[in-house]
């Protein structure tokens, strides 16, 4: 039916099978009817942070990954290459050589540190590592957490802090119905934690908890929620409807009846951590009380007051943001924490020259901000730039498809294709079926690879 077109079809490598990589893939396949996408991920699994970041009690959100996987697949111009880390057997230069363009959507994985004493003590952890652990990320499966103290402290006022707190407080009976990693479920089943304190430097109006997460705190009946150091009175008539809504929800939390003897969550505002205290391991955290001061630009900033408190705790999680490790071969702006780019086109921050055929999307491009769907317009913008460059003749691919296949073959048998990932997915579901859970994740790389190689089995009825 079709008339062959002279110009070769675009072949694009996307690094990272998380939401921004998938959004970019689907957008590209939709916009260019002939383009092919090769999607690489260092994990044998799809999803990125949708798999290893989204909280197990919010597993509905994980569906987004399968949805866009299917869309990409339906194009027939899409391949997955899992368990392939760029920079190891395949280099950045290899990618550029074998594709017209490369989109890095590999995200940010390192956490930001607090920069206070005692941060390296046993018992002081990055929330991101903890999240990856309870979500069964193979790199984090061997971690160990002691839940033998009655209190844990989470520093930070974003949704990740709330995720961590819920995992610590929900209790095994509830968690058993989620896809939390088996090792985490067992460890948390023996937890003695009764209270989690979330520390925020500023007040409720400045916190980054989103309205649905706050509503969830109101609707749940697993634990009590207490607000300390509330300064909401400073915002009698908040103009921003989003903030006004959140303040109303805080008000509802405040009015929520307490339940004696239950576990509890303390949202403690206006507190800056000064020091994590302990000898062999964490025993407490010392915090300063803050006050909010209006600056010339109108923004309210925290100023440490003179009074300090010590909060006993056996665990401290820092959840104050993510930081990037730049992909090898790409420039990086340490100040902004992103790869220097213009609308997704990577450029050299010194000379200002564009890295031909190299693009970024997602957190690498704009920093660790937004929710899953925020990556969609972001990836769209990058794909726009890429297609414009393609139309302007700025992209070229040196090697042909056979050369790419030869290169991929060099990755050996450990490379996991889409069928391999589906086999993992199916195995995990079957494992869950056996014990009445939605899914039991495979957390060891050897198990993941074994599942990927297992012959396709008949779908459970």
């Amino acid at each position, binding site marked *: 039916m079709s008339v062959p077109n002279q110009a070769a079809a675009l072949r694009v490598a996307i690094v990272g099978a998380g939401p921004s990589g998938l959004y970019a893939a689907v957008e590209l396949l939709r916009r260019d009817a002939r383009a092919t996408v090769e999607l690489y991920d260092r994990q044998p699994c799809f999803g990125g942070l949708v798999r290893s970041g989204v909280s197990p009690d919010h597993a509905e959100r994980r569906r987004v990954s399968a949805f866009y996987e299917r869309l990409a*697949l339906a*194009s*027939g111009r899409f391949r997955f290459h899992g368990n392939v880390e760029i920079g190891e057997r395949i280099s950045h230069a290899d990618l550029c050589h074998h594709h017209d363009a490369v989109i890095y959507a590999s995200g940010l994985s390192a956490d930001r540190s607090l920069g206070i004493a005692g941060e390296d003590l046993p018992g002081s952890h990055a929330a991101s590592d903890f999240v990856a652990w309870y979500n069964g990320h193979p790199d984090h499966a061997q971690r160990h957490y002691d839940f033998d103290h009655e209190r844990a402290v989470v520093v930070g006022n974003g949704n990740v802090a709330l995720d961590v707190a819920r995992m610590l407080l929900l209790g095994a009976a509830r968690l058993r119905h989620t896809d939390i990693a088996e090792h985490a479920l067992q460890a948390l089943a023996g937890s003695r934690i009764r209270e989690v304190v979330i520390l925020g430097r500023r007040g409720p109006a400045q916190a980054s908890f989103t309205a649905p997460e706050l509503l969830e705190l109101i609707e749940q009946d697993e634990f009590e929620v207490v607000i300390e150091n509330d300064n909401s009175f400073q915002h009698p008539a908040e103009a921003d409807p989003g903030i006004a809504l959140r303040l109303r929800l805080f008000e509802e939390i405040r009015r929520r009846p307490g339940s004696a003897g239950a576990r509890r969550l303390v949202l403690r505002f206006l507190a800056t951590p000064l020091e994590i205290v302990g000898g062999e391991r964490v025993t407490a955290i010392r915090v300063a009380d803050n006050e909010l001061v209006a600056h010339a630009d109108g923004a309210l900033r925290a100023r440490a007051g003179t009074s300090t408190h010590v909060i006993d705790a056996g665990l401290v999680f820092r959840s104050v943001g993510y930081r990037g490790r730049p992909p090898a071969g790409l420039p990086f702006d340490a100040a902004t924490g992103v790869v220097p780019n213009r609308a997704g086109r990577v450029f050299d921050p010194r000379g200002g020259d564009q890295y031909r055929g190299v693009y970024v999307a997602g957190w690498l491009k704009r920093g660790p901000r937004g929710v899953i769907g925020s990556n969609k317009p972001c990836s769209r913008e990058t794909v726009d730039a890429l297609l414009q460059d393609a139309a302007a003749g700025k992209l070229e691919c040196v090697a042909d498809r056979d050369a790419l296949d030869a290169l991929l073959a060099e990755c050996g048998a450990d490379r996991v294709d889409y069928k391999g990932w589906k086999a993992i997915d199916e195995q995990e579901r079957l494992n869950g079926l056996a014990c009445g859970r939605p899914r039991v994740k495979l957390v060891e790389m050897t198990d993941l690879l074994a599942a990927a190689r297992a012959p396709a089995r008949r779908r459970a009825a």
Partner: protein
Amino acid sequence: MSETIYSYCQYCMCMCGTKIVVDGNRVVDIEPDRENPFSWRDFCRKGKTAAQVIDHPQRLTRPMKRVGDRYVEASYEEAITDIAARLQRIIEQHGADAVGSYSGNPLGFNFAGTMFWNGLLDAIGTGNRYWVGSVDQNNTHVVQEQMYGTELMALIGDVDDAKCFLFIGMDPAQSKFVWMETVPDGWNRVLEAQRKGAELIVVDPRRSTTAERADTHVAILPGQDWAFLLGLLHVIFSERLECTDTAVPLSGVAEIRAMAMSAPLDDLADRCGVAVELIRDVARRFATAERGMCITHTGVSHTPTGTIAEWLAAVLNAVTNRLDQPGGKRIEPGYIDLIAIWSKFAPPGKHRTRLRDQPTVAGFHSLAELADEITVPGAGQIRAMLIAAGNPVTSGPDGDALDQALSQLDLLVSIDFVQRESHRHAHWLIPGTHFLEREGLHVLFAGLVELPFAQYARRAVKPPDGVMEEWQFFTELALALNRNLFGKPGVNKIIRASRWLARLSGKPGWALNPRWIERLLVKSGKRLKYDDILRHPHGWLYGKKEYGHLARALRTPDKTVHCAPPRFLFALRRELTEHRTRTSAAFPMLMVNRRVRESMNSWLNETPGLFEQHRSNAVEMHPDDAAALGLESGQWARVSSATGTVELPVVIVAGGRAGVVAIPHGWGSRIFDPRAAGRTRTFGVNRNLLVDRRELDPFSQIPSLNATPVRVEALAVRPQHAAPATSAVH
């Protein structure tokens, strides 16, 4: 300067009121008109994106004439002169029947176009008329003619008061309840009734969106609705659950009772693949519900026994007293005598097809016969075709055969918006118009809608410069042929005289135009005044829902509803004595069709604003069938029948019947760019290529677009030749 125009969407029978914001001759936005008292709640993306269709990049804005492999622009004068001369030659040499015609669904929404199309065909005098109804609704016309004495007795579901819904082969969650009836917001009203306690029983081989909502989903074997329905009647008569004192007089009940009782229930259950107990259960629930209705749509009509099933469903309603009762099915008399006027538009013709000696249904022959009527030589062979707003190669069975046939014509003229698959071999492409560019009162709709409602469709923008409306073109062609429009002596003289008067007086409205006929028809109904309708820009709800009209509307000689027409009884008896399995070792599965809300048959799928995700059709498979073939969602499969083969992506859908695959129709129709030869656009594949053009329902003459025996094979790789699933310009 922007201006707001109120009208209604004319893609489907939902007739959603629209508020159209226009700036100059450009549509800025289309929204549902919430002041429309009748319909706007079914508004969807089709209406939202209607202006994108006006701006179609391949739109025809001038007549285009084929010259060798190319098309060149021509004036209307040249087009009409040439077409008339060639038609004239063919008629003189071979007779009027050598000119064939086909009209598609969009023409049905263009009342002026429909009237003048019939006028042109009458002028030519051909009996070779084909239309889209023969791949869609003809079974209803046959059943209505046999049972009520008229081919058009639009029975409309009275959804709010129903206590039990039995939906067979319909997916109102997608279709918005429209087919041969319009129940605004009907699906939501069904759900509301369900919330208040009504039962929803859905009979469909697939797990449709509607079936998802059902209290009971009967995943029936495709093509066996008749057996299921006869089973229901068997139980109802056996258990004396029928109503003996119906609101509408019935005849033939004893005959159908005897027939139903004599059919063994376990045999019927076996035929339709539904457990005896489930048949009993559905029968009891339906018959004992205080109020209810059974509705059958295209899932039933597209099967080889679609007429028998449609009849049995109508009998089911009749004997349980669901006719003309609240919560059942009723008719809306409207403001004209629809039944009388319908018989003028679709006269019970005497014409029979040359090769298979088939009569017309609703005035037209079956599309399935068209290819052979063109290719088989002999007296009366079709040598020229006029296709108005139609795409029969994609809409009908075995499009390859029809495509071949169309290529052999001496003359093929298409009147349409763009050059579609069926117009590939056209000698002339005549531009069509969009409903946003037309105005008029569709008086036929008055009797298909749920409530006494009238609305004059207003023009939002003018057609592109110089483009004639369809009715104008048809009139010009009749004049050029020097054959009286409508086949009535003197009409052409009246047209010429009226034009002369209009020119003389400076009043263009004095020249004959469709408004004359609309006015006459409204006047003949003696209920409304045309000008009063015009005075209601949002539409006019001119009365209340009433019951009690059906008995008076019956056109049977004895003024009863005939429950046992001998032709149907005979066919049913034959069906019961034969035991045909549609599947075979070579074709072990059955293909069915499905509805997609954004899709309007074959003519909108390329609109950019529709289909945000998948701009393609796919084959939906049961998980077990897919697993047996090692197929995953997203992989490609080859689907073959005795007639053809198509290749398309797989989507696994649980909850339906194993052994059944669903593929939506309307896809795979190419859009050509006559200005740039070789450039085409396609989305999806034409699944009707799998459908045999010879296996027809003997009454409706509808081909087996459903329950088509097929084989599915996994494709290791996506086929190279396949049209890309997402979008394509090549």
